[in-house]
């Protein structure tokens, strides 16, 4: 499979102190790592693309490490995660699906024992397209306080022949979470769901 060609990387860190309610004792942080790569399958229908997933593993690991570093360097503070992709207009949605395995693998590898499926989304779009990356708790998908999302995008990407890859990590619940449901303290942690 072709080599991964990286044009640009972006790191975004949000630190939320409040949202009109009491100021949080510990601000919520959300971080996104974005990578803009050449789409080796752009412009034509290529039947066999799955081999490219393995080629993306090193980039995924690099992005996951950069996220942990952007959040202070300790993987233990990461409580939520998500991933996504925006495929440039000369590509197909299926090219974005190539990110599921390497993106998820990379974050689990860096975070140790994360059990929950990594929430994800993808779309085809042009430069400046925004993506709402879904976020859930890293060990139990049903933890309601950690259902969240982070909007990401880059003004000049993805070009037609590019794919924008995204990984997101958060350090806690929504800043004023109060709609009940499973709490992080109640996780049994066996099945990745509850």
């Amino acid at each position, binding site marked *: 499979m072709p080599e991964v*060609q*990286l*044009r*640009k*990387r*972006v*790191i*975004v*860190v*949000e*630190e*939320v*102190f*409040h*949202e*009109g309610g009491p100021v949080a004792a510990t601000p919520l942080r959300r971080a996104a790592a974005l990578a803009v790569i050449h789409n080796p399958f752009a412009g034509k229908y290529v039947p066999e693309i799955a081999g490219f997933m393995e080629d993306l593993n090193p980039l995924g690991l690099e992005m996951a490490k950069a996220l942990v570093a952007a959040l202070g360097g300790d993987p233990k503070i990461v409580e939520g995660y998500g991933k996504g992709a925006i495929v440039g207009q000369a590509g197909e949605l299926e090219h974005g699906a190539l990110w599921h395995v390497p993106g998820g693998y990379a974050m689990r590898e860096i975070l140790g024992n994360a059990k929950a499926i990594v929430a994800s989304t993808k779309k085809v779009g042009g430069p*400046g397209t*925004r993506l709402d990356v879904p976020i859930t708790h890293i060990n139990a998908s049903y933890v309601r306080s950690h259902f969240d999302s982070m*909007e990401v*995008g*880059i*003004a000049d990407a993805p070009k037609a022949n590019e794919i924008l890859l995204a990984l997101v990590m958060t350090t806690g619940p929504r800043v004023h979470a109060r709609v009940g449901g499973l709490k992080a303290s109640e996780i049994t942690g066996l099945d990745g769901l509850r």
Partner: protein
Amino acid sequence: MKTKIRKIVTFVEETRTEMGKPVNPPTRRAAAAAVIENPFAGNYVEDLTELMEIGEELGALLTERAVAALGILGAFAESYGKAAAVGENGELEHAAAILHPKLGTPVRKTLGKGAALIPSSKKRGGPGVALDIPLGHKDAAFVRSHFDGMEIRINDAPRANEIVVAIAVTDSGRPLPRVGGLTKDQIKGEDGLR
């Protein structure tokens, strides 16, 4: 601190290739943005001193955040810029009060020098509005390789009674500059222009 901050977001962009050509070393820009309460939202207030003082606080805080995001010493920053987006219940003049009278001094203190004018832009807008922060060399405004801009946006800001204030700092100019003009090694650095 006088400023009431709801949220701080930092952005780091690193360009590795442009038109398939390697950018060596990669160019890097960082922006730090604060989402603050507009103390004068909804009212015409003659005396804008409070916003000027807020500008002074944010000049220090956001420059420190941006430089930290690049992982460099302030003295190694090459270009800078500033911008503000005022929510719908505020005036453009509120952005001016933050950006122009007092914000620059702490920026320059953090960066060590900064003889050049800090290029700026401002607008009124709703949540998610894009800010194009103009960039220019910090010691000589005419350095053509460093004329640039950085787009940032925060999906949930500014709310009607808020202001987004952003400072951008780089350690480099455009990725592959080749339109001539004054170069950075020709800077005299006396008048802030050349």
